[in-house]
């Protein structure tokens, strides 16, 4: 049986805050990059901050209801990191006017990791309710 403690809740709040900071850093980075992009922008770079904000910060707050194990947190973190890197690289390519098939690897990997996290959470919830 998995016990969800106040320490777990504290860890989740810390994660939520860290992802919020990460989102802010990405916003700042985009603002600085735009200064050198000669007026060209990319939706992928512009909205890269949404990934840690939604999948990181907001999801961490939602998980206060059910908790999150260390391994699940690690998988979620890997997913977010991969998606953010992919979004950033896609943005750099678009601003430069390039196309790259390699960037899709990041998105596919990030999505697979996220679904992996989801499966872990579902299995845990089933075990908890069993």
């Amino acid at each position, binding site marked *: 049986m998995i016990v969800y403690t106040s320490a777990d809740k504290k860890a989740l709040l810390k994660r939520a805050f860290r992802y919020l900071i990460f989102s802010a850093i990405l916003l700042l980075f985009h603002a600085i990059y735009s200064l050198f992009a*000669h007026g*060209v922008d990319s939706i992928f770079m512009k909205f890269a901050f949404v990934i840690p904000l939604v999948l990181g910060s907001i999801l961490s707050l939602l998980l206060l209801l059910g908790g999150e194990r260390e391994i699940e947190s*690690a998988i979620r973190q*890997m997913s977010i990191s991969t998606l953010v890197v992919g979004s950033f*690289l896609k943005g750099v*390519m678009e601003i430069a006017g390039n196309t790259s098939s*390699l960037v899709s690897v*990041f998105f596919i990997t990030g999505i697979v990791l996220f679904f992996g996290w989801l499966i872990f959470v579902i299995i845990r919830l089933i075990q908890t309710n069993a």
Partner: protein
Amino acid sequence: MLKAKKMFLVMFVFYMILFSFSSFTMLYEFVIPHGGFYVEDPTTTSTTTTTTPISQTTSGSGTLTDTITTITSTTTTTSTIVYPDQLPTVLSNGTILGTYENDEALITIYQIRASNSDVFVADVVVKDAHTILSGLAYNTFGGTNIVQTVSTMATEHDAIFAVNADYASHYDSGYVIRNGMILRNSTSYRNAIALYENGTVSSFAESSVSINDVLNDGAWQLWSFGPVIIKDGVSVASVNDGLDRDAVNNPRTAFGYVSANHFMFVCVDGRTTQSHGVDIEELSGIMMSLNCVQAYNFDGGGSSTMYFNGEIINHPSEGSERSVSDCVYIRR
């Protein structure tokens, strides 16, 4: 404790792989030359003795192979070239930087001022559209990071005049015809412009035509970058066309068509206090003032480079020439 160590090791390995693959992706897309296939230069000879029709031989049937031999044409003529149209007023008031004339081409380089920018205009009249040639970096098309400066390509091709073109290798798709050969037959969302063997020019949406039909109609060059800025005498350029780069002042290169075998190649300086650059509508205004009835935007920004008689005429915005994948040139 052991579990935490394992977790740390897994995360460490993951981030090492992520960093390595990210670095490889950036290097692969921006630094490492790769891909592409070799394209031979067309050979053109000219004498001043007799006049004979152009004979053309092609190898292959427009199918891509590892090595493609382009059209060989032999042109002989004795006539001098007469300027066919009225000189645009804006050029009459401009500064002539240089001229060149032989049996095949009459080139006059002007410098004018427009939209707070220095504008360099190559007023080109040719006897035959085959005089307008395409050069490829290292004679290679379709690769990534296979680039040379316009001046290097011009020197290698013994060009009197050269200007950067549509950087066709930059994209993965889009029609490309160079020196009468199809180099890429995949369609894109872009509008293309074709220079035909009879010296005329037309633009069209790539999705609306087959490249084989375009070639069969006599296309000698086909460029795929855009947008089209003048079509049939009407400006069609808009800063609201959905492309950020078209709405912002930038250095630009453009190709214009005045009448059969009469063309304007334009480079606008930008990103400096001396020259602010132009947006796509201002560029259209410049091409209209040059009496162009068809005009097309080439690759701009740091790529905008005009070469004439051994020198770079304009002022590339990065302080030196940017290496690009292709150029348009006229041989000495």
